[in-house]
């Protein structure tokens, strides 16, 4: 699993797309009180390739939806469930893909409260 940084996500992902890789999904996990872990999973001819990035809480992650349109749903899902926001999302549901606006608890992030609901 290749470790990358937040600054190089879009470049690394673009290279994989150029190499004919198909995006399978993103998997986000809360590592500890300060960090999230995102694994980007790609597939080519049944062989998986992974990129791992650690995102500090309170920062925004660059969206890859400009490179892979299909990432838009999973990035919106991560916004809902972890409160981790993505910059440059093609279609931004603003933390309301699954949740209603009045819900301010972040489900998969130890029940911490969301700061604001983006309109």
């Amino acid at each position, binding site marked *: 699993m290749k470790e990358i940084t937040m600054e190089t996500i879009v470049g690394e992902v673009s290279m994989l797309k150029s190499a004919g890789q198909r995006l*399978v*999904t993103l*998997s986000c*996990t809360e590592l500890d009180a300060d960090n999230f872990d995102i694994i980007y999973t790609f597939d080519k001819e*049944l062989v*998986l390739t992974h990129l791992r990035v650690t995102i500090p809480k309170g920062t925004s992650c660059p969206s890859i939806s400009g490179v892979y349109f299909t990432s838009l749903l999973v990035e919106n899902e991560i916004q809902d469930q972890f409160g981790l926001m993505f910059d440059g999302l093609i279609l931004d549901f603003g933390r309301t893909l699954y*949740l209603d606006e009045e819900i301010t608890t972040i489900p998969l992030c130890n029940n911490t409260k969301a700061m604001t609901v983006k309109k």
Partner: protein
Amino acid sequence: MARTIIPFGPQHPVLPEPLHLKLVVEDEIVREAIPALGYVHRGLEKLAEIRDFHQMIQIVERVCGICSMVHSLCYCQGIEEMMGIEVPERAKYLRTIWSELHRMHSHLLWLGLFADAFGFESLFMQFWRIRERIMDINEATTGSRVIVSVNVVGGVRQDLTPEQCSWILTELAQAEKEIKSIQSTILTDYTVCKRTQGVGVLSKEQAYELGAAGPTLRGSGVAQDMRQLKYAAFDKIDFETVVETAGDSYARSKVRFREAVQSIDLVRAAIAGLPQGDLAAPFKGNPEGEIITRVEQPRGECMYYMKGNGTKFLERVRIRTPTFANIPPLLAMLPGLELADVPVVVLSIDPCISCTER
């Protein structure tokens, strides 16, 4: 031209699950589609915090009733790989039999619903009548029609007797005969062809780039099926990926029809090769580490990411379901369609909102 936004769903006649699409139309031609989800989201991944890794089998089975067996298979395979458990051969074959039975009844259900989408009620009932044979097999062999709960970490909890195997083969022979008797109707009938051929076309390049899964991907000419990974007993059973190239609603329905017939052969082969042996391997301890595992559900590739920390609770269970992957391709298919074709094309990806809103 006046632009209008037409709400499609969340409740509509052809899809018994709440999916909402905002359709921007000009003179009944769809220009843009924006999805709205979240009507029935259940937060099943969150339950991993309070249910141990054995109890999670029952949770993941409820991600989707139709694919319940295949979800638990994917989950159990991941835990087994994490813990280094060697599953007995008999259990692998039994898993293959039940997962192919699930593929059959899922495809037969879908073929019926698809016929219903363009008003072909009698065809709908024919497919569902055949499906009942498969549901009866599930009930007789596992005690349950839909959520069969046969998988455990290390193997399976149910066995098949020789009499049951013989009866299954008889039932499948009858089901095959009945399916083939309506083959010409679903594949050559004027109404079916008129409503599906050339409708909702997804090119091979689009399907691949947009991450389509399952029959949606294979209907566009990409020969990718997770059974090629040789999980369960697929390494011992000859299996050829079903592919169609037109990329339209007709091609997707043809892939499902052919796969339903193919599953009969796969079950036959699995029963013929069913070895003697244990049903499950004993093990001790708790899962530790990270794993990504994939299987082929009736609707396509399903992926589980799991992270264990040596306790009985998993730190993270992430489930990527095929419908979730097929929504972006659907959004690419809809623009340019006539409004009347939208229900047919939406149904052509076999949307499972239960999976999507796990």
